[in-house]
């Protein structure tokens, strides 16, 4: 809560709460040897992700730390902005020129751009536009030693130097705090939302495959399975309903613009104390994994086939949540050979710390440890919260 004097991560209370109002003050805090690890906080939409910090920690609120303006160049389809800008504010600015940033993680209106990129996950639009990191042109980052460093630029094509932006995206702030970002943006195109109730996942999946192969290029193609129905949600370019229907041989139900999209985007992130897991897998393993998950009785299963993503949620009242959480390590083991990863995105209080958020490490983890040791040897940022205890 704004102005709150307490801050908890998975039931563990922060020793200090910092809220710097300038970059200079932020640097002072980062370089101050207070013996704590700093947990960066943006719009607070993804704080449940990650393990409990190791040792005493301070919450580091970044929402007031940067004061730059949103510098949008519509003719170049680029924008440079301070990392504490909310996605909602950015989109409103871009929309004035008929443009947008096609990144839409759950509950993202109030999420900050820095936070979104540090977490690195997308939403329904990822099926068409790829992961958030694909839209980053350049970044400035504050390192744990208090140095501001930069990589990339603000042009839409750039191979000048190492692509550190990809390293910073999805790193959960463990190797630096994102301070400024240059992004590619895209023109808004006219779309229409449709739904289709199907017999089961296989039927919906078959339709998505067909739509993709026929080059219809949907912006979103999510499948929602709950105990009562399987529903396919499609966001299609305007004026292709007829041709799509004739190609797939199904009638599409037009939906009110936005409502179903938000349901797909925010699923698993709307109420407190849900167990929400995210699975990344190949197209050919979707069916097998969904069958496994259904045995664990989730309230909802969201499948984003063109992104290789499944999100399963158990509401806090679902008595199966505890058993499901116990099953996750076994499921991970079963799927190890299938290039599948399972991440716990949110978990109810009574399950906190019982299941490893990220799953087992592989041989390339050695490189990741070296990366952490190179850029944050003392664990100043988010110590213990990331993959493999980084």
């Amino acid at each position: 809560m704004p102005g709150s004097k307490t801050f908890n991560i998975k039931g563990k209370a922060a020793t200090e709460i910092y809220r710097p109002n300038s970059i200079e003050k932020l640097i002072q805090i980062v370089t101050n040897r207070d013996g704590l690890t700093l947990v960066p906080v943006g719009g607070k939409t993804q704080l449940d992700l990650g393990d409990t910090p190791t040792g005493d920690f301070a919450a580091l609120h970044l929402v007031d730390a940067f004061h730059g303006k949103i510098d949008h160049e519509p003719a170049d389809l680029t924008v440079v902005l301070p990392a504490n800008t909310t996605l909602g504010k950015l989109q409103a600015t871009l929309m004035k020129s008929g443009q947008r940033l096609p990144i839409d993680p759950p509950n993202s209106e109030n999420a900050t751009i820095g936070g979104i990129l540090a977490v690195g996950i997308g939403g329904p639009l990822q099926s068409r536009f790829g992961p958030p990191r694909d839209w980053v042109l350049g970044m400035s980052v504050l390192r744990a030693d208090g140095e501001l460093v930069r990589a990339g630029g603000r042009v839409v094509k750039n191979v000048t130097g190492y692509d550190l932006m990809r390293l910073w995206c999805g790193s959960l702030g463990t190797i630096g705090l994102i301070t400024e970002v240059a992004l590619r943006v895209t023109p808004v195109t006219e779309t229409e939302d449709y739904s289709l109730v199907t017999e089961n996942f296989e039927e919906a999946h078959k339709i998505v495959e067909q739509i993709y192969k026929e080059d219809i290029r949907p912006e979103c193609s999510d499948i929602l399975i709950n105990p009562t129905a399987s529903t396919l949600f499609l966001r299609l370019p305007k004026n292709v309903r007829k041709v799509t229907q004739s190609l797939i041989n199904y009638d599409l139900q037009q939906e009110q613009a936005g409502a179903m999209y938000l349901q797909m985007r925010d699923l698993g992130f709307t109420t407190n104390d849900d167990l929400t897991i995210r699975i990344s897998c190949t197209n050919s393993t979707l069916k097998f994994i969904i069958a496994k998950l259904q045995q664990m009785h989730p309230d909802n299963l969201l499948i984003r086939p063109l992104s290789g993503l499944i999100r399963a949620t158990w509401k806090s009242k679902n008595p199966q949540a505890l058993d499901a959480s116990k099953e996750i390590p076994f499921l991970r083991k079963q799927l190890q050979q299938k290039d599948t990863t399972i991440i716990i995105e949110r978990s109810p209080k009574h399950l906190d710390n019982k299941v490893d958020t990220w799953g087992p490490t592989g041989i390339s983890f050695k490189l990741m440890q070296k990366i952490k040791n190179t850029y944050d040897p003392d664990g100043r940022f988010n110590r213990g919260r990331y993959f493999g205890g980084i």
Partner: protein
Amino acid sequence: MSKNNKQLVKQLQKIVGAENVLYKTEDLIPYEMDGTVERHLPDFVVFPSCTQEIVEIVELSKKFMIPITPRGAGTGLSGGAIPIHGGIVIVTARMRKIIEIDPINRIAIVEPGVPNINLTTAAASDGLFYAPDPSSQKACTIGGNIAENAGGPHCLALGVTTNHVLGMEIVTADGEPMWIGGKTPESVGYDVRGLFIGSEGTLGIATKIVVRLLPIPATITTMLAIFNNIEDACHAVSSIIESGLIPAALELIDKVTLQAAEAGLNCGYPSDAEAVLLIEIDGLQEIVDTQVKQAEEACKQHQASEIRKAQSPDERELLWKGRKGAIGALGRIAPNYYILDGVVPRSRLVETMLEVGKISEKYGFPVANVFHAGDGNIHPNLLFDERIPGTTEKVLQAGAEIMNVCISFGGTLSGEHGVGYEKQRFMPWLYNEIDLENMRSVRTVFGNSGMFNPCKILPEGSGCGEIANIPMAVSAAGPDAWI
């Protein structure tokens, strides 16, 4: 040959077989250069056939403290494969198996020496293709594309190599084999895959690569819009993008290049036009029809004198043959050409072209322009004759000035060819010493102590700049450029 080198040859032969090690000067000469003007002879060239052999070669190089330079097809345009300090060049030419094409998951697993075009050809029967298409795609390899994060005309809408590679087996600069990324779009932990792509062979060698394949577009319309001056063509590019349309490709070709391409390749280009835009729009017929009209309107608004559409796949292929073969065709009008690669914000294209013209005039080198206008990625080609003493130095100076113009307009040093050896000294124009030191740290992570593809990407100080023309090229841009 020294005793030490004889011993090294023996051990290399033991790893890859005697027929796969070169060490005589006459055999080494083809490996002293890539597509740039710089050159340096390696001491040994080896052709491994598998990951384990590469591991052993890297181990051996560490033991003998001799540098390694990885090489694909040698088509690179920034000197990335030139062995500046000699040593061993590892060529991936024998590792050219397409291990698997998996149409259900729309991925392929390939070895690094597979030529780019072979992948698309092999995937075609499943209705799929590999999107990055550098102009050298008939020769350049997937491993080389990873090193350079290669683009191509079709990356305007589809993205560059990093957007199409899911995972890799690599041998790190330290000699350790491992997988980074996998077969799915998301892996847990730091995106080491993304860091490795575009690292220009300084962090290791990719030995197996998982790439994404895309469905072949339902329909494709390729158009040629003809203009009476290059500025109008540049303005048309901005109008197309501003109208909300992102074509599959949007290429600009100027008069000098058009004439060379037409003379050499008979591709049907109008040789009297000042500039043309090659525009490609693909997708569902219903959408393509609307977008083609949109693009036509934008071109007409900027005085396009004529718009031609390819009427058949053969005609389309001919138009692309001209574009992709354009640079090679320049050999008809000058003994040498220096290909530059810079990027500017799209809205600054007109000003940039004017400045490029001024520099060309100042130095007396004609310039031929053919480039990816849609993303502001320019490729001025300076035409010269290296047989005239002092000319190579002068052309490098002119190139440095053009790079400086790109940076002054808010652009960058390379859009797709990489920094390599050619531009490492210009990096301080863009980044301060802390930024560069921050990038340099990445090498330590992968165990590169300075012996793995030395003198590439980042300025290394003494030892990497003895070639006389480099300081001259740098000084051409003026001391103020050093920030």
